[in-house]
Structure formats: C-alpha cells, structure tokens
C-alpha cells in the first residue's frame, strides 16, 4: 500500500513526460502543416492577395527594429507582400546558411553570400534551387543588370541566383587609404607610385607620428591559405603595381597563375624588404581579416591600409578623430609601379546571389522574383535612402535624404535600406557618403579605377579538385610568409611553386580551362 502510494506520483510524472514528448512531436507536425497550407492556397491567389515571402539575409551591424516598423509596413503595402526577413549577423552567416540549407528550413529566398563559389555550385548540382532564367525575362529592373555580371553568375548557361549588384570596380580592397594629416605633417605628397608609398611608410616609421613607438606604417593581414596562397591579403594595389595578374592570366593558350610569374617574386621581395625595415604591421600574420586591419587604422595607430572608397566616408573620419582630432584620410586612387604597371580588380559585380530553394512551389517563384524586381526599382532606391517621407525624412533631393535629427534616429531604428533585398544596378554603389565633397571624390575615384581594371579570366569558374582539397595552398602560404619574414630562402618558395605546378596545379588548371573553353567555343 505504502509503495503504491509513493509510486503514483512517480508514474504520473513519467506519463506526463511521455505526453510532453508526444506533444512536441505533435507541434512539429502542425508546424509543417501550417507551412504547407499557404503553398496550396497561393496559386489561386491573384495579385490582390499579398504573397508571403520568408527570406534569410546577411546583416552587418545592428538589426532593424522588428516590431511596428513603419518602413517595413510601407514596403509591404507597396510591394503587395507579407515579408518575413531573418537577419543573420555576418559573423555567423556561413554557418547559419549551411544549417538552413541542410535542414531544409522553409525559406522562400536565401542569400548565398559567397556568390558563385564551390558551395553554390555543389548545391545547384544537388538540385537545391529553382532555375530562375525564365522568370527573369519578364522583369523590368533586374534585367538591367550588366550582361557580364549575369554571365559570371550562371551555371551551365542558367541563372540559379539573382546577383545583388555591386560595382564591377572598387569593392573589397581596391585602394590604399592613408593618413593625410601625417603626410602633410612631413610635407609628403599623396603617393602615386610604389616608391613614393615606400618612402612615406619609411617616414612614418622614423618619425612615429602616433607617438610612443606605436606607429604601424602599413597594416595588412594574414591569408587563410585556403583560397589565396599568398603570404598576406590586403595588398592588391601593390600587387598590380608590380604587374601581377588578377589570380589567373591567359598567355595565348597557356594558363598562368599569379605566383608563377616573375613579377610575383619581385612583389614578395618588396614585402620582405618592407618587413625587415619594420614598415609592415608585426601582427599581420596573426590578423585574420580586413576588418581587423581596418580597426587598427581607425584606432589611429596605423598609417595606411587597403580598403575601398566607402572607407573615406565621414563616419570613419569621425572615429579617427576621437583619438586624433587632426586626423584626415586620403585615398590613393591609382598606385603605379616602376614600369607604369597598375590595376584594380574587375570584380564579379555582385555581392551575394538570391536563390529560391526548390522546395518552394513553382507558381510562387514568379511572385518572389517580381518582388525582388520591385525592390530594385527607382522608387525603392529613394526609399532605401530616405525611408518613408514624413517619418524617416522630409524630402529626397539630389540623391540624398533631407533629414531632421529626429528622423535620422527613426531611420537608424527602422533601417529601411535593410529591407530592400535586391539593389538597383549602379556603378557608384560604393559611393555612399552624405557629404557632397566626399561623394564627388568617391565617384571620381571609382571612375579612375574603372579605366585600369584587371580581369580574371576564370573568375566565375570553379575547380572541384581545389574544393575537395582546401589545404592545397596552405603550405605555399606558409613558406611565402616565412620568406617575407626573413626566415627562409627563395629556394623553398620556388620548390613549393614547382610542386604545385607539377602536382595539384595540373588538375586545377585543367578543370578551369575546360570550363572556359566550353563556354567560349560555344559562342
């Protein structure tokens, strides 16, 4: 009797747990059911019924206010959609995307942040996404994107993702940014050639403008050795000043990789020499990305780093002025080498591809594409900058929003630009300043570098071999870094280059060239 008395609550709680578990399972089912339901109901839904779109996108900085967001309300009304955007911080994006894709989460629209990389290729081959080619034809704005950009993003001649347009020039690491106030202090010109740059860095080292021996003349960062074999990243303008190709070069029918050229050796020697003189940030080998190099520059200790026109924006200058009120930034638009070599990468012209998972029913795809097209319209360019008139700005004039302090604050909260999923094709997309002077300088710089573009003939192709052997460049990166740091001889580097040329290089080159030939002979 006693025992049963004690047992009853135990058994009851056990039973409760079982039912809770069952309840969980039940929940899952009903959730699946609810996502399935709209699929069935949308096809009949005419234009009057708002399309519900669940999208996942990358986020830099703070997320917009999600409750009672007037910007979102306005956009949903004009676009006739029910928009549900999941903003994922950039640091976690790759992992989250991987999970979202593999778990088959019910997104209607995913931003493939890496563009047409191995991942995207693999996923397309697995049948992960809808072929959007037929849906794009009818669009008004998206179809204005440059042919080159479209071609670069196609797989087997089909578009599985809609590129989010960026400039073909001037993104990433196109220009050197240098402390104008330091140059002026020692009566130096803004460097136009590699010698002038080296000289300026030397002066920074000697005179120590940051004080206390803290000056870092030039800050760059270590390469991961997965995609780029070089010792350091954040040195593009200097590479082009030495005449190094943009990763690959076609010399007749011969395919040449950047590090196989004699120019590359000269570039490494410049790095080695600069390192020995203390011109390069000692921490460079342990820095992991451009952000870390940029933050050293914005902290006021570094004299120069490689960024792009959007880095001279006034908010960056303000940050610098907190440590040094006299701080000013100059931009080196073109850096010339000894024989007049110069260049800026011709980029893929987009950041991220919008892909529609194949789990989305076919009749919904056009609605999704139409919505993307709608966000890329002129009216939404104004919207992304000025938000809703009367709430986020009073007026939109000459491409700039006229805002009161109150409206600025509301804009920062609601972030209308974050909901404009697809950008309008615009070569000046990186010119983002609100100060007319800086904006003009940004546009002028972009114009200048668009004349010295260096193309990578294999930009949009991928080597399966390289993707399955992500470590194939790591050894090379290690010996090159050692060489630059003065710890190794050139023979070691040459040996690694030869080993690559005779080993994995054969396969990688062949795969890339095959794709190139297939596409170019077909035309």
């Amino acid at each position, binding site marked *: 009797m006693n025992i049963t008395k004690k047992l009853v609550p135990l058994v009851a709680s056990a039973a409760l*747990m079982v039912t809770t*578990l069952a309840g969980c399972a039940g929940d899952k089912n009903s959730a699946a059911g609810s996502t399935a339901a709209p699929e069935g109901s949308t096809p009949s839904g005419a234009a009057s019924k708002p399309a519900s779109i669940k999208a996942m996108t990358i986020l830099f900085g703070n997320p917009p206010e999600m409750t009672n967001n007037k910007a979102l309300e306005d956009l949903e009304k004009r676009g006739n959609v029910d928009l549900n955007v999941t903003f994922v911080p950039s640091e976690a994006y790759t992992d989250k995307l991987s999970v979202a894709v593999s778990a088959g989460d019910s997104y209607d629209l995913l931003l493939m942040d890496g563009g047409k990389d191995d991942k995207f290729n693999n996923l397309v081959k697995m049948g992960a996404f809808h072929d959007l080619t037929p849906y794009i034809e009818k669009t008004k704005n998206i179809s204005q994107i440059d042919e080159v950009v479209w071609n670069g993003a196609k797989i087997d001649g089909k578009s599985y993702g809609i590129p989010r347009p960026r400039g073909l020039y001037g993104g990433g690491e196109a220009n050197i940014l240098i402390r104008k106030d330091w140059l002026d202090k020692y009566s130096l010109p803004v460097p136009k050639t590699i010698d002038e740059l080296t000289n300026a860095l030397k002066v920074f080292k000697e005179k120590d403008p940051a004080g206390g021996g803290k000056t870092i003349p030039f800050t760059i960062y270590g390469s991961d050795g997965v995609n780029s074999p070089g010792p350091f990243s954040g040195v593009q303008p200097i590479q082009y000043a030495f005449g190094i190709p943009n990763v690959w070069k076609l010399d007749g029918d011969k395919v040449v990789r950047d590090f196989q050229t004699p120019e590359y050796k000269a570039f490494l020697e410049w790095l080695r020499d600069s390192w020995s003189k203390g011109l390069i940030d000692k921490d460079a*080998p*342990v820095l992991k990305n451009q952000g870390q190099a940029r933050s050293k520059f914005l902290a006021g200790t570094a004299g120069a780093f490689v960024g792009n026109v959007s880095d001279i924006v006034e908010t960056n200058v303000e940050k610098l002025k907190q440590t040094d009120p006299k701080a000013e930034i100059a931009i080196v638009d073109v850096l010339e080498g000894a024989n007049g070599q110069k260049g800026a990468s011709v980029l893929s012209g987009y950041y991220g591809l919008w892909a529609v998972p194949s789990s989305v029913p076919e009749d919904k795809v056009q609605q999704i594409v139409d919505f993307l097209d709608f966000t890329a319209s002129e009216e939404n360019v104004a919207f992304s900058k000025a938000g809703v008139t009367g709430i986020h700005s009073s007026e939109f004039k000459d491409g700039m929003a006229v805002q009161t302090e109150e409206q600025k604050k509301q804009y920062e909260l609601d972030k209308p630009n974050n909901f404009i999923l697809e950008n309008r094709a615009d070569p000046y997309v990186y010119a983002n300043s609100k100060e007319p002077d800086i904006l003009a300088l940004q546009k002028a710089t972009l114009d200048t570098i668009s004349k010295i573009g260096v193309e990578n003939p294999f930009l949009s192709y991928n080597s399966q071999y390289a993707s399955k052997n992500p470590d194939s460049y790591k050894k090379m990166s290690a010996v090159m870094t050692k060489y630059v740091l003065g710890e190794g001889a050139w023979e070691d580097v040459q040996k690694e280059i030869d080993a690559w040329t005779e080993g994995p290089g054969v396969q990688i080159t062949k795969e890339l060239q095959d794709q190139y030939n297939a596409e170019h002979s077909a035309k």
Partner: protein
Amino acid sequence: MQRALRPKRFHQLWPFYLLAAPGILYFLTFHYIPMTGLILAFKEYSPFKGMMDSPWVGLDNFRQFFGTSDFYMLLKNTLLISLLNLIIYFPFTIFLSLLLNEVRLKVFKRVSQTIVYLPHFLSWVVIYGITISFFGPSGVINHYLGQWFDGSANFLVSNEWFRPLVIFQSIWKDAGWGTIIFLAALAGINPEQYEAAKVDGASRLQSIWHITLPGIKGTIVILLLLRLGSSMDSNFMQIFLMTNSLNLDVSNVFDLFVYHVGLEQFNYSFAITVGMFKSVASLILVLGANYAAKLLGEEGIF
C-alpha cells in the same frame, strides 16, 4: 533468500519499466536514430535527394580521406596535442587537487578554488585575445624582450611554440575546473586513515603518497579512460583561433579539416567519413585501455 534472488516477472516490475521509458525513448530518438546517418559516409549525400535517395559510392570517401597527403600529418597533430594534454594537463589537475586538498584554512581554500574555476567560464575567443596581447608579435612579452634583450620570440607565428601555448592555454582555462571531480573523490577518503597514519608517525608527504593517491586511483583511471576516448577530438574553437599560415604544420587537426571540407564546402559525406573514422579509432583506444586497466587490476568503465 533463494526466492528473493529469483528474477522478477514483468508484471511485478512494470512501474519501474514505465519510469525508464522516457529515458529509453530519449536515447532511441536522439542517440540511436541519428546514428543511421553514418551510412552517409558510403554515399554522395545531397540534402535535396534525402538520405535514402543519395547515390551509393562505396568506400570512395574513405579512399579519398586516407589518400590525402595530409592524412598522416592530421593524425599526428591530433594525437600529439591529445597526448601532451594527457601527460601535462591531466597530471597537473591531479597535482592542483592535491594542493587544494592540503589547504587547511577553509576560507582560503574556498577563495582559491573559486579563483581557479573562473577562467573556465571565459570563451576561447577571449582567451585568444588575452594570448595575443601577451604573446602576440607586438604583445607585452615581446615588448619587454625587445627592450631588455634586444630580441623577440615568435610565440604565435611559429611551429615550435604552438603546442606549448595550446597546453598552456588549456591549463590556464580548465585546470581549476578539472579538479572538481578529484576533490569530490578526495572528500570520500576516510579521515580515520589519516589519523591512524599520523599516530604511526607518517609525514604529510608520506600520507599523500600512501593514502590520498591510492584513495583516488580509481577515479584517476576512469577519467584517464574517458579522456582517451576523446583523444581524436581537439578543442576546435581553441585550435581554430590559434592557427595561422606559419604554424599550419602542427596546428592542422581533423576537426579543422572537417570544418574546411565538410562545412565550408558542403561536402557532408566526406565530413561524416572523417567523423566515423574518429569514432571508430576512439572506440578502439578506449576498449584497449580498458582491457589494459583490467589486466592491472583496476575496475575500468565496462
């Protein structure tokens, strides 16, 4: 007596089976069903075709894995870091527990225990940040090395210093936390033994050697076996943050490889292959060590 030992019938015991049911259900759903995913190691998995419809590729993934020129380097690096942890970090936690156990002043003991636990709650990112500001090329130590001896040491950017630093980090972060189980075991030793030893004139060191250590021998063996079981795992976060192109020869481990190949490139099957290899190797290690422990007269874990 005889009757009591006879196995009882189900109808007599059903409340207990019912009690166990949620546990069994939990293990089935979350531990055993997911194990079927291992068949993906023999397939070219595509999440969109599903587990069943992905094509079979036999042992291709394994062939590719063992065929990579880096396989032995990965194996060596993984095992070496585990081995160093085993012979430096692990005895250190025992040593630290013995020290803490000898502290007689209660307040001091509590305070010092809390202090050694604390770093465990810091994330590896923070620890890497601290490491950089101390050992980095422009860190504190190199600053003084430069000032006093006119030299510098490549702590973070060389092969030689990578392993010592990783072990040092582990000790700094987790040694205090690792003492918890030992301290619990130490608390279980009968104080009468110490009193008896004292009467017989044993010194403090002698009583540590003859009473304390034998008293926690069983715990040491079991923890050692458990550690062996995870010797194919590395602390991913720690290693991931510590690698750079100048220490790749020693820092590249299986977990990092899986991250690059499996997650970054979406080669799920390949990642599962590596994971399966790790599990099988760990199982063999544990079974072997368990067998050895039993030969030596210890209890083991099975």
